[in-house]
């Protein structure tokens, strides 16, 4: 069957996609909360103030939880999914837990979706935890990339947070992903 094409999320997405605490996978005061944040920029290096970032991740033990409650947070249930809109400076932020490794020896990562006004279809990428050099070196996706491009997928630690900037275009453009069935839908 032919997959339905995507279209831009447009400028008025806050109306339909915004929910209270949608970017708080855990309350910011949670003892193990980490701040995943960054800036979304365009090909001129200007901030993108109307982007939506969604993350989907394992819990710290590497379990893929499948619990409802992301749109009506109860403050206790970790759902593994969150959504954030960028602010006028192109900044987004999540309060979450660090994703554990779901496969022995592999690095933990956030699966990331990027939507924006001006972006005609959604983009996928990954944001890896930066700490386990051995696991990062063994990761098949990262190993297939040139070192400078690989770096665009690895978060860096700053203060109590993990920083993941998203560059939609340009010299240090973020690596964006296609999956095989997605590619099939294009041919």
């Amino acid at each position, binding site marked *: 069957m032919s997959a339905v094409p995507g*279209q*831009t999320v447009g400028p008025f997405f806050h109306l339909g996609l915004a929910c209270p605490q949608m970017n708080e996978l855990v309350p910011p005061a949670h003892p193990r909360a980490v701040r995943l944040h960054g800036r979304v920029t365009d090909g001129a290096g200007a901030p993108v103030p109307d982007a939506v970032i969604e993350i989907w991740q394992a819990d710290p033990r590497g379990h893929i939880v499948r619990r409802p409650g992301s749109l009506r947070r109860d403050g206790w249930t970790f759902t593994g999914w969150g959504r954030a809109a960028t602010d006028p400076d192109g900044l987004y932020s999540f309060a979450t837990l660090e994703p554990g490794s779901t496969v022995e020896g592999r690095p933990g990562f956030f699966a990331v979706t990027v939507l924006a006004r001006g972006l005609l279809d959604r983009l996928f990428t990954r944001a890896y935890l930066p700490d386990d050099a051995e696991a990062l070196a063994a990761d098949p996706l990262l190993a297939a990339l040139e070192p400078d491009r690989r770096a665009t997928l690895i978060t860096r630690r700053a203060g109590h947070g993990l920083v993941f900037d998203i560059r939609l275009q340009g010299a240090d453009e973020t690596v964006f992903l296609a*999956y095989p069935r997605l590619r099939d839908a294009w041919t």
Partner: protein
Amino acid sequence: MNTQAEIDQEIEAAAQQPGGPQPRIDYAPYRSSVLRHPKQPLHLVDPESVELWAPAFGHRDVADDEADLTIQHAGTPLGERIVVTGRVLDGDGRPVAGQLVEVWQANAAGRYRHQRDQHPAPHDPNFTGVGRCLTGPDGTYRFQTIKPGPYPWRNHLNAWRPAHIHFSVFGTEFTQRLVTQMYFPGDPLFRYDPIYQSITDPKARELLVAQYDHDLTTPEWNTGYRWDVVLTGTHRTPLDTGDPS
């Protein structure tokens, strides 16, 4: 600012280039796309770990009455009352059951309930333009709403968007995430709209156009439109289908 005639020429030139069934993210007639699309090819990767699963939503997240956009205020919204329904299916034709569908739209006059929409058309105090529902066991979603109006934007001089409803849909895998727009049949603005025309394959862009369905129309109440949402295929193998934990 360019004229519609200049944009028409660009749309026509772009239509000569072979395009796939997805929008071309590099599509200059839509001016905002110029600096906002990656120029490097997408990197093909086999999905793994969380990418093989989708987030779960349930009745905790969505109340039943959120599927009716006409009952969110004290009064009745102005405009043509419509039902929009269809099924969410994966690329192999299997229903996507119990999954979240989110919609947002302009009111009948073509105005969004959003501070950035400055189009001088009236707001409707009885219409917000936001709905959510969970798909049924056979993948069915259903919204009752008001037919949105077309509205102007500033891509070029005299730019108007065809009437549309924004849809946000999840599949059973992260890889199937879809955000798109549903259009209405026979809209005279299709040929002028760079967002719709960014899908350069005519058969593919017609997949975004709902069908009028008289069986969904009810006497003295609403007209009806049917639109099925087919997502991409899944990657999970039978070995993966157990509990992910």
